[in-house]
């Protein structure tokens, strides 16, 4: 692992829509330290996915600069190229259905030419078994539960040893019980590998349980409201959710986000991605 810092400075982005320019992000600044699990939480339309897409290299920005490990990653003049140093895990499974679990996990290292097929396979087996997925190597994704699919996908991303791992609401749409289990599984992987993580969600409880720091964003245009240190010890376990400190943090962030969401709700703005 070579986790890097991620600096988002003054980033702005607007979209053209029928009713004119729509400012999605306005002077947005976030600093993420190496090995930090940073969660951005905000209502729909706060531009959090736009931010993640810019880091991933799927979209450009209109203002500011994003630096990875101190080096310029993207500016308004130059969109980043997608690459394995910034692997993305999306909302719904994007495992390749035509590849077995093992071949999904080896995909990155093999196509990048970083490892031989044999090396990649033994590494993948090791990582899968660490994630409690031993025995599923030769299955196809369609044969797995959604929870197992998600875990395979995170392993597939981590095996590339990305400088930053980008998670775009990866547990959205899962039932509460599976989701809680997924949180613990993710934290276990995180504690083992200590990558830098940028995690995006609209679920505040998820943000507090997972994050080292949580940035709350406002909508329309997306701005950073505040960044809060989550001073909960790691490793974190499910019982933490009942603790006083957890609920205090939850209430703090909730009040930050709620004002904004309420404003947008009243204004009746259409949600943007």
């Amino acid at each position: 692992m070579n986790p890097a810092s991620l600096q988002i400075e003054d980033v702005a982005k607007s979209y053209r829509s029928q009713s004119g320019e729509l400012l999605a992000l306005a002077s947005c600044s976030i600093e993420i330290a190496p090995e930090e699990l940073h969660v951005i939480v905000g209502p729909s339309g706060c531009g959090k996915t736009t931010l993640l897409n810019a880091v991933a290299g799927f979209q450009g920005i209109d203002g500011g600069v994003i630096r990875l490990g101190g080096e310029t990653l993207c500016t308004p003049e130059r969109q980043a190229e997608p690459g394995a140093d910034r692997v993305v895990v999306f909302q719904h499974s994007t495992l390749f259905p035509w590849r077995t679990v093992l071949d999904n996990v080896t995909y990155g290292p093999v196509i990048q030419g970083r490892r031989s097929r044999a090396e990649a396979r033994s590494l993948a087996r090791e990582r899968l078994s660490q994630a409690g997925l031993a025995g599923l190597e030769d299955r196809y994704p369609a044969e797995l539960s959604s929870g197992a699919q998600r875990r395979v996908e995170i392993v597939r991303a981590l095996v590339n040893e990305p400088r930053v791992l980008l998670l775009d609401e990866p547990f959205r749409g899962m039932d509460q019980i599976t989701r809680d289990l997924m949180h613990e599984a993710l934290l276990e992987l995180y504690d083992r590998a200590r990558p830098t993580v940028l995690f995006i969600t609209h679920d505040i409880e998820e943000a507090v349980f997972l994050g080292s720091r949580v940035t709350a964003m406002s909508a329309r245009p997306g701005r950073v409201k505040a960044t809060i240190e989550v001073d909960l010890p790691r490793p974190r376990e499910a019982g933490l959710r009942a603790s006083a400190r957890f609920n205090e943090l939850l209430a703090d962030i909730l009040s930050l986000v709620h004002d904004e969401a309420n404003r947008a709700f009243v204004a009746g703005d259409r949600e943007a991605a």
Partner: protein
Amino acid sequence: MSRGAVLRGALGILAFLALWELGARIDAPVVGVLPGPAEVASSFADLVGSGGYWSSWVASGERVLWGFAAAMAVGVPFGLLLAINQRAKALLFPPFEILRPIPPLAWVPLSILFWPTQNLSIEFVIFMGAFYTVVLNVVGGAEQIDRRHVLVARSLGAGTWTVYRRVILPATLPSIATGAVVGMGITWEVVVAAELISGGGGSGGDGGGLGFLLWNAYQGGAIAQVIVCMISLGVAGYASSVAVRVLSERLMPWKEAR
């Protein structure tokens, strides 16, 4: 297939043959003009012994195979191009759509002009039969690819070429397979007429193909032999479609995994 299904299938065929025999015996309307299955069977027994029958199978089979292979070889990349490149689609799709309704058999005169040998001309007509179906299936399949698979592949370090080969191609494979199965069916429909019109193999009777053999039998008044050829074509078409399906299932083991 389960044993019960095989049994019921055999029963269906037997019932069909029994009705046909009955119809032929009692001079029922329409089917009464035909020889019954028994007579056809004896004609088949005669034909089996002659080399011409089997060489007709081989001749038609080869034509179908080449025409089909050409349709796949040209149709799959062409379909992928149309699906991926908007400019190529804007340019090439309109002429494609205008040419598409032209029945393959209408290409026979031009095909004869185009190609130096009769075999090539027949293969070209077969190619025209399967080509459009293959292309349309590939375009439809490739356009429905989950875009996130492309994004995630790029995020995992794939370059443009790797995305085509390792993501777009396998993601389109199910549609390619559908196109292949349907296209293979069309090739056998076309081979008969193409052989009738092109007038046989050229090297005297033999190698004329099943379609030519059928037409020859009709002109000689051997209706039982015509029916043998018809059934042979049905069997050949069915067997080829099954072969293509089995082959494509081999290529897509993940499809059974649901």
